[in-house]
């Protein structure tokens, strides 16, 4: 059974987004436990460049398992301000800690209203069960 933490927001394409009160305006993005489980053995991660401006829903990173390559989509519009080099050096970290050490990038989002259109944990859980 996949872990769907209650403090995150989700996309249909299996990214999670975390915004905390201490750093407003910045979202951390990764892929869900369900996604890493479906992809299995992640062997390569390609991250966006720092400073890249993205629109919500734009493909911005790639994860590769042994079998296939999959695009990762940016949940929010904004500018990439930090990427997680640890998962480039150790892609399996995404499998081991999808919601913590295996985060992908931080984005300074430009439209806070987009947060409201993301999926709640309940609706994401319903989607992956369905």
């Amino acid at each position, binding site marked *: 059974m996949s872990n769907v933490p209650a403090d995150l927001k989700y996309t249909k394409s299996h990214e999670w987004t975390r915004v905390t009160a201490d750093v407003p305006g910045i979202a951390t993005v990764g892929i869900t436990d369900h996604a890493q489980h479906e992809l299995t053995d992640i062997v390569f991660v390609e991250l966006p460049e720092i400073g890249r401006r993205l629109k919500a829903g734009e493909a911005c990173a790639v994860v*590769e398992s*042994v*079998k296939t390559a999959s695009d990762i989509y940016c949940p929010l519009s904004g500018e990439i301000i930090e990427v997680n080099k640890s998962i480039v050096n150790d892609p399996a970290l995404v499998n081991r800690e999808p919601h913590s050490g295996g985060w992908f990038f931080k984005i300074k989002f430009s439209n806070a209203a987009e947060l409201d259109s993301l999926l709640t944990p309940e609706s994401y859980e319903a989607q992956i069960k369905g």
Partner: protein
Amino acid sequence: MLKRTALFSAHQTLGARLIDFGGWEMPVQYSGIVAEHLAVRHAAGIFDISHMGEITVSGAAAADFLNHVLTNDVRKLAPGRGQYTLLCNERGGVIDDLYAYQLSQEVYLLIVNASRTEADVAWLKSRWNDFPHRNDVLLTDASHNYSAVAVQGPRAKEFISACVAGPSISAMRVNHVTDLQKNQIAGFQFDHGGVFVSRTGYTGEDGFEITGSDKAIEHAWNAILQTGQPFGIKPCGLGARDTLRTEVCYPLYGHELDENTTPPEAGLGFFVALDKGQFIGSAALLRQKAEGAGKKLIAFKMTEKSAPPRPQYAIRAGGASIGTVTSGTQSPSLNVGIGMGYVPPHCARPDTTIEIEIRGKSFPAIVVPKPIYKRPSAAN
């Protein structure tokens, strides 16, 4: 509607992820491709290969007919022996690659690719129609009568005899399954009508392939998983089957082989007996031998950190595209990107530097001798 093998419910019970493979609903993985791959390299794995086709050819002129349609020389066989061989068209292009076993004096069994069974049978029937001694050849597509499993890995020999007991009763006469040598086949008494066991496989490891009725193979699957458990056996899917065969550079039809590729271009000239006399495709293959092949299949390794190479990626050298990747993956054994692909012959020598284009960027790779992965010596 996808076809299902007799082991379908066994796969479901084991939590397999299922995919469409050549019209069959087959397991791509159970626990994970890397874990399954490494189980086969270091312990053992069992694969459902029931989707593969079985064609029997028998009669007084069976050997002559097979030597007319296949590239290898079936006269090198004897009852209980098998050989890798190819079915070619008049242009020398590969219709399928297969194993031909001689079961008894006038009886042969062909094991062919699932995705090619229909094409093979149609081609063979049409060649049979033109064959002067066709009344002495009986050709039967027996695919629906058989299921099959492959038990592969260095520890398979430690428990296989506890699952299938000797002595054999047909083809190669041996006391135990483990007495079979590479490419040999024998029939054994077993529940539900007996099984054929051959010492063959598609992984580069020692192993056995077991063919029999649906019921016999369901029984064999369960018995092998149970008996092999203390030896570390894992059920393995098509994902691991693909990475295992890619590491040892075994071709896969539709990737390295097609009707516009000849066996020598694919590096399979060893399995073409040009000295046996005329056969379908021999004129074209002799001409190609004299004139030289237009392309060569290479194996390569990525030399810097990159995404894994994938089929259809461009192979580049000197700023130009020189060919296409046919198979590519991250090697679970070597933990590096590996692949195969076709390039012009002058670029095919080992140590040649090439580049693989991945999402618009070129990454360096080097042509390496085949196989890419060699198992540690048998002493281990």
